[in-house]
């Protein structure tokens, strides 16, 4: 359909009043220690660092900085718990503990959601509707497997590995912790978990929850700190398995440090997913899928649909509809129930995103941003599009990890597939078409771990998740997610 200059205006007389989620029910301590052997203990070297609210730049709490001595204590505690309690416990009993964690998380969902939004900047709509319920769902799902491993691996004997070192990123702090802790515990392993430096609070609240549900001491230990803490943890000889989610750069370092050891590892790294829109797609719903693909969680999503490939004949229509839809995205206070896009997680990440915006412009790409007003304090980025880009642009090649979408067009399915696969990454992808046969043909050709058809960024505990190529090794979630945590006899 021809698109004349008729413009819609979303600057309306009728505006939404602020609708802030209450924070009265939330308790955040001024200072958090390390969670080792079921107790909160001060770090050996006595160091603490600030965790701030990226929407206000105010300090939320002081958090302990774990060093090699603390790592030693935590791994020892986890080893003792593994040998004395957890690995020998009746599987059904282990399952009961995990169910209890799932239920407790469900009961305290509101508090966890608010803290996740305070510490990480994500909109309460997402922490409330996605992060926390999905975290709880992962515990429920793997609790069910605890006493059914013989059915997961028929004819084999599944034995636990030992102590798992788990390092999680700042984009989905609690959810990634749940993805990692739940299958580890279900299979009989114990855990030392390190949350990201900028978002440690929900992991520490989870530690409190572990105490409250009476999980035996040492089964889950939580160490806060920066990269050095993670490196010491990965290098510790008492570790049997490493599970890491984060950047490809750090993933490489971990792989190097594990070379020559018998430690198992799974790495879930970066991505630069192609979201492919065919002319015969349901266009309005595809536009919504593009929005969910790239603006979910401020674009801080490893499987974000950050490259849009749209068939030439509908490109103008899709881009114009996308711009209209983007105008209705509300950027601001993460705790406002109407906020669509919250704060960028840290000053550092904002600087990274801004350097890509400058780079894209310098490379000759056209940049489009919405007219959303931004708060004065805090770290913010307007929803952004780059058009006029090609496969050789760095904003098309590299993971920006922000609300920035690079748009290219294609004519044939073969061209779309070539472009989709022409990337060092292979975590996810999306295909939009009304033709079922095309869905099957395309999805078989895309080299990525997760592919969505006529939807995007959908997660479920039963579905395996993981990447090809530089997006990582191993799978988390579903039946596949048990494999990295068992030795099969």
């Amino acid at each position, binding site marked *: *359909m021809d698109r004349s200059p008729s413009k819609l205006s979303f600057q309306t007389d*009728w505006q939404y009043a602020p609708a802030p989620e209450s924070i009265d029910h939330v308790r955040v301590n001024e200072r958090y220690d390390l969670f080792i052997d079921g107790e909160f203990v001060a770090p050996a070297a006595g160091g603490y660092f600030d965790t701030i609210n990226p929407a206000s730049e105010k300090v939320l709490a002081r958090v302990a900085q774990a060093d090699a001595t603390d790592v030693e204590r935590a791994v020892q505690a986890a080893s003792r718990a593994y040998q004395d309690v957890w690995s020998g416990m009746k599987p059904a009993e282990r399952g009961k503990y995990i169910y209890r964690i799932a239920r407790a998380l469900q009961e305290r969902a509101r508090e966890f959601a608010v803290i996740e939004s305070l510490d990480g900047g994500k909109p309460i709509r997402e922490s409330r509707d996605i992060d926390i319920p999905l975290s709880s769902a992962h515990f429920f799902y793997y609790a069910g497997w605890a006493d059914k491993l013989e059915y997961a691996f028929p004819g084999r004997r599944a034995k636990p590995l030992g102590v798992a070192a788990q390092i999680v990123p700042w984009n989905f702090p609690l959810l990634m912790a749940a993805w990692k802790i739940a299958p580890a515990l279900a299979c009989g392993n114990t855990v030392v978990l390190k949350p990201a430096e900028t978002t440690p609070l929900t992991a520490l609240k989870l530690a409190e929850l572990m105490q409250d549900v009476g999980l035996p001491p040492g089964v889950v230990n939580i160490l806060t700190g920066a990269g050095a803490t993670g490196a010491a943890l990965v290098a510790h000889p008492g570790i049997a398995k490493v599970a890491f989610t984060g950047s490809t750069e750090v993933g490489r370092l971990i792989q190097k440090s594990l070379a020559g050891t018998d430690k198992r590892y799974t790495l879930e790294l970066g991505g630069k997913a192609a979201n492919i829109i065919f002319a015969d797609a349901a266009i*309005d719903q595809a536009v919504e899928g593009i929005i969910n693909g790239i603006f979910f969680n401020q674009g801080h999503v490893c499987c974000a649909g950050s490259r849009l490939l749209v068939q030439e004949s509908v490109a103008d229509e899709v881009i114009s509809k996308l711009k209209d839809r983007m105008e209705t995205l509300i950027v601001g206070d993460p705790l406002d*129930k109407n906020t669509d896009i919250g704060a960028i997680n840290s000053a550092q990440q904002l600087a990274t995103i801004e350097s890509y915006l400058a780079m894209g412009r310098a490379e000759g790409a056209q940049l489009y941003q919405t007219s959303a007003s931004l708060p004065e304090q805090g770290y913010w980025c307007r929803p952004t599009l780059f058009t006029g880009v090609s496969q050789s642009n760095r904003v098309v090649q590299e993971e920006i990890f922000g609300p920035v979408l690079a748009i290219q067009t294609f004519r044939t399915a073969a061209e779309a597939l070539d472009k989709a696969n022409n990337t060092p990454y292979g975590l996810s992808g999306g295909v939009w078409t009304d033709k079922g046969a095309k869905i099957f043909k395309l999805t078989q050709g895309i080299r990525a771990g997760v592919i969505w058809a006529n939807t995007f960024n959908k997660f479920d505990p039963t579905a395996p998740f993981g990447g090809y190529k530089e997006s990582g090794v191993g799978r988390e979630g579903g039946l596949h997610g048990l494999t990295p945590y068992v030795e099969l006899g």
Partner: protein
Amino acid sequence: MTAPAAAAVAPGFPDLDRIPRVDQVGVEERVARLCARSIKKDSKVAALQLALSMIDLTTLEGQDTPGKVRQLCQKAMHLHSALPDLPRVAAVCVYPSMVQVARQSLAGTAIRVCSVATAFPSGQTSLDIKLKDVCLAVDSGADEVDMVISRGAFLRGDHAYVFDEISAIKEACGAAHLKVILETGELGTLDRVRRASVLAMHAGADFIKTSTGKIQPAATMPVTLVMLQAIRDFYHATDRRVGMKPAGGISKAKQAIQYLVMLRETLGQAWLTPGLFRFGASSLANDVLMQIEKQLTGAYQSADYFSKD
């Protein structure tokens, strides 16, 4: 109340192959997200007042009498005397036989008289009789005519018949505004809703309307979203603003606010007016009044304090 920017000549029969597909799952997800908007305080009062101004107060019963219609008109003019600064409803909607009564009762007010026509609600008669029905309504003083499409012809695939019928009725309406009822509850799929919307707009509809209220389901949010998106695309293609009227099943203020959120985020400022959006409803007004009262006084009042006409 501004009239829709409809030019004299409709754009002609549409290219049905170019009508975008609709994915029901995606539509329902979008609706769920729109319904998650939290509308509070000033914003809520403003929405309630806007909703009130968009209501087509309706009575479409076989048992309607001139007395009943006069009562409804009285209600339209005096919604709730305890709150003097309320907006007025947009229109009173009746059968053709009651148009004269409504016209007389509403004389001197800005409230419009709306009449259903074309063998409402089934439409099961000849075009000739439908045109006479429209003429009766218009000659009796109706400002707006709500017609039903021939669902039988549409479902059979005879799009040209439906298009021609709407065009003929549009012509018979003269200066009166034409609202085309798709009766989406009988269309079965959202793809058909979209197709019927496009046909109606191309044939000259000033408004497209979901339902007669006599068939279930009547107005739903997914159906309304698809129609609003069709209106948006038609606007981009032709520069003509067509109005939207969900009707039937919207009886609560909260629902009305959700519809307004959907309208705001799909079509924006220009459509947030009774000139381009209406609620076809009989019991919505009192619930909206009750909520306005609650916002102003902080307490819910008994339904007995709100007149039912």
